[in-house]
């Protein structure tokens, strides 16, 4: 039986208890009241009683039937409520964990609302007869669940015996509730070490950075999310091939000053060539060049 089923049952019990609490109270004989209660209980949900509930009920009845010494030193006869499975502790705050995984604290007098899924338990002293007999004690447990907050009214528990009995029942319920929950794996039980942000690692000033940026941001709404330009640029930058590293133009290196002359230096001796022409032309080339037609005719006819 999971938590939901238990909550559903508790809601059913709450409805029944509320109806009974609103009903006008009347003094009935203990035997008649007991018989009536048994009959009513048998009509309500005789078949829905679980073994655990039965044990709780038996424990409550056993504790109630035992002679107790309440404040008023009056014997209280507990009226067993068959399906009233509650956890309550009249004196000590009880950590209840039947419904929600979060722990629930129950205060005896004032309702405690711990969280949205917490169960508020309230123990009320039942307005029973002033001089009850041992068989005349009536335990009235009221459980109200509103928006995840279960309020349990314990009426008629004004003695330590009943409260201790209920404590045992609560312990059983704790066992039952705890049985449904699985212990977290060992890996999840290890302490989580929050790593310092990169900014802190880089700059060492984590306080100022955390003060500027909240640790968590609200999750985005469901649906299609439009990427911001910065995100798109980051995406493209991550997808794009990294540009080849272009080496910056080399800066003009300063010309190193000439090294000091070494101790050994070559001495160059160049030849001196005279400007005089090595060739001498003498005379003229004998070229027959007749000046007139007669001379040409003489030369050609001499051939």
């Amino acid at each position, binding site marked *: 039986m999971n938590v939901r089923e238990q909550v559903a049952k508790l809601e059913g019990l709450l409805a029944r208890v509320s109806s009974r609490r609103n009903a006008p109270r009347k003094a009935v004989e203990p035997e008649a009241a007991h018989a009536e209660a048994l009959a009513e209980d048998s009509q309500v949900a005789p078949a829905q009683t679980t073994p655990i509930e039965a044990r709780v009920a038996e424990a409550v009845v056993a504790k109630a039937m035992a002679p107790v010494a309440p404040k008023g030193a009056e014997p209280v006869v507990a009226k067993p409520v068959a399906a009233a499975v509650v956890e309550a502790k009249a004196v000590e705050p009880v950590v209840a964990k039947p419904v929600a995984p979060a722990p629930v604290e129950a205060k005896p007098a004032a309702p405690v609302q711990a969280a949205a899924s917490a169960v508020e338990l309230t123990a009320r002293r039942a307005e029973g007869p002033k001089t009850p007999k041992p068989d005349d004690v009536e335990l009235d447990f009221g459980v109200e669940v509103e928006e995840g907050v279960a309020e349990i009214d314990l009426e008629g528990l004004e003695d330590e015996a009943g409260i201790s009995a209920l404590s045992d029942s609560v312990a059983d319920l704790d066992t039952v509730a705890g049985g449904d929950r699985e212990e977290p794996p060992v890996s999840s039980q290890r302490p989580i070490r929050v790593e310092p942000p990169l900014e802190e690692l880089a700059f060492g000033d984590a306080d100022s950075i955390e003060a500027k940026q909240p640790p968590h941001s609200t999750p985005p709404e469901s649906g299609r999310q439009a990427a911001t330009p910065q995100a798109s640029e980051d995406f493209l930058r991550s997808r794009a091939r990294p540009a080849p590293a272009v080496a910056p133009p080399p800066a003009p290196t300063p010309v190193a000053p000439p090294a000091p002359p070494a101790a050994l230096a070559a001495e160059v001796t160049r030849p001196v060539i005279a400007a005089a022409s090595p060739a001498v032309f003498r005379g003229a080339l004998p070229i027959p060049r007749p000046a007139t*037609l007669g001379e040409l*005719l003489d*030369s050609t006819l*001499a*051939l």
Partner: protein
Amino acid sequence: MNAQSNPGPVDFDLSRGRVDRRADAETKVGHDDQVVLVPVTALAGLEKIAGAAVTAQLARSIGVSFGSRVAAKIGSAEAVAKASLEVFVSALAGEVAVSGWGVLHLERWGRAMVLVVDHAPALPYGMLAALLEGAVSAAAAREVHAVALAKGTGDASEARAARVLIVSARTAEHARRWLLDGASEAEVIRRLHDDVPRTGGTA
């Protein structure tokens, strides 16, 4: 073409059906010569009919007329012999060009004198050589012999030049024999300048 090379106009008198070679109008020398226009094909056929010697004699007579006009233009045969090459060539080239025999210029290969005619009419080179032989002989009043250094016929449409060697009669005989033996123009001229003994020729 300078003034001395002006060959004078050709007068076509259609009323009388006469064509005259006028004397040089500027120098007022020379005389008018009556001419007839003869088709080139007629001259070419004459060689086939009458033979090369007759055709060469005809061409030589035409050249004498050219030389006579040059000598008359320059002044006399002695003047022509003393005239510069440019003056002589210019005067003779004018006469040749007006008569339709092509463009004349002179080349001197060593001591040899070579007259070159470009755009010569389609006539045998021998006929052209005879024409120039007559022209130079008449102009200079000296006996010269001309030998065509190339075989074949001229073609006015082509730029092929006809070279004519001006030499003595004995040397012309040697050159003609060398050309018949297959010597080229340059080879004939080179042999003329060698001192090797020339066999087969008449001194």
